[in-house]
């Protein structure tokens, strides 16, 4: 790729660095590993950039970020997995007073911990929808699954989140 191509790549893809990092952060659940994933994904994206035919560049980049994270997770799978999510146990643990926690700046932690505790197939739809604000159609394309599956996964993910978090105490926007 020539210098012009690289400049175009940077202009097109660097604005989505935060989105790329967020997705990687929630998929691998570690900030340092997420940074490695993002760098790897950008270099892969650079490599494939010539085959990129325009369209939604964020979705295109996130697809690569996701694949990078998945193959890395797959290679690491022999390491002990985190314990399965137990809603009843976490409900008690998480159901602190949100006001108090907000005062301590913990509400963000509470939410992100709840997302981290979701199984990966729920976690990624929640992150793409509620953190990245993508449409169901874009999510379907990134994950390579039908629209109806996006819908049902989100519904199940949100149901888990509702029982894990003290939603009753959250304000309405």
């Amino acid at each position, binding site marked *: 790729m*020539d210098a012009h191509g690289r400049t175009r790549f*940077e202009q097109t893809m660097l604005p989505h660095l935060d989105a790329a990092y967020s997705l990687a952060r929630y998929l691998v659940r570690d900030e340092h590993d997420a940074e490695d994933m993002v760098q790897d994904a950008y270099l892969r994206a650079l490599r494939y950039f010539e085959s990129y035919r325009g369209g939604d560049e964020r979705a295109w980049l996130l697809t690569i970020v996701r694949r990078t994270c998945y193959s890395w997770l797959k290679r690491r799978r022999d390491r002990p997995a985190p314990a399965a999510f137990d809603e009843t146990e976490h409900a008690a643990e998480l159901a602190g007073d949100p006001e108090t926690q907000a005062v301590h700046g913990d509400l*963000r932690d509470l939410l992100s911990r709840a997302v981290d505790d979701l199984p990966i197939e729920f976690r990624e739809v929640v992150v793409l929808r509620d953190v990245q604000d993508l449409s169901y159609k874009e999510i379907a394309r990134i994950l390579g699954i039908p629209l109806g599956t996006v819908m049902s996964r*989100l519904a199940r993910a949100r149901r888990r989140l509702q029982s894990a978090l003290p939603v009753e105490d959250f*304000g309405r*926007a």
Partner: protein
Amino acid sequence: MAQCEGFDIQLSAYVDGELEELGVAGVEAHLKECPACARRVEGERRLRAAFRKHLAPVRASEELRADVREAIAAAGRQAAASGKPGARPWRAAQWLALAATIAVAVLGGRQWALWSLARRTAPLEAELLTAHVRSLQLSHLTDVPSSDHHTVKPWFAGKLDYSPPVPELDSLGFRLIGGRLDYVRDRPTAVIVYGRRQHIINLFLWPSGDSTAATKVETDRGYNSVHGAGGGIAYWAISDLDVTELRQFVDLAMKSR
């Protein structure tokens, strides 16, 4: 409430504004009658609001931004240093440069050592060795993971201007792991991945008019390479497998056609 079941998966889509008109009318009619679902919708709204407020995309650090820019620029510098400007993009040398950049950027020193090792050897062998190492360490061993050669072989159709053989060697102790499209000498190249005990073998295949028996090509710090050609195909196997077994593997692969 039995009638809630149909609405169950629609409630999230309704809150997200992703439900089509007809569905919206149905959900709204149901919500008027069903306090339980109405509560859930209310909960979803609060949940969404909380996420939006507190979980906006995590900002990437300035260090990461700088690192990514630097990695892109480094890939460019390497490209500029090799090959003529305006020539076809992604010459072999650039792939090597990129492999090196990724190795350094992502994994650090050990990979750099491997890369330097690859660079010291002859160009094609170095390229194959680098591709082998990259496949093991950059989470890209296969594009089509499958132990079924009826799955692996057709996968290459349309991706290459030749149809690579996918030797069946399972009964001989070389299990098929999958196939991958790699780049060797500036061309898309078929790689069939096999496993023997805990060893991974990358078998690179491309068209060739030569006829050569399987011979050891190069041994370098634990990596062995065996080359053979026949029946219109060149075979290059790279692995940390014992060289005798690797030669036997290439022999069998060539005979299995």
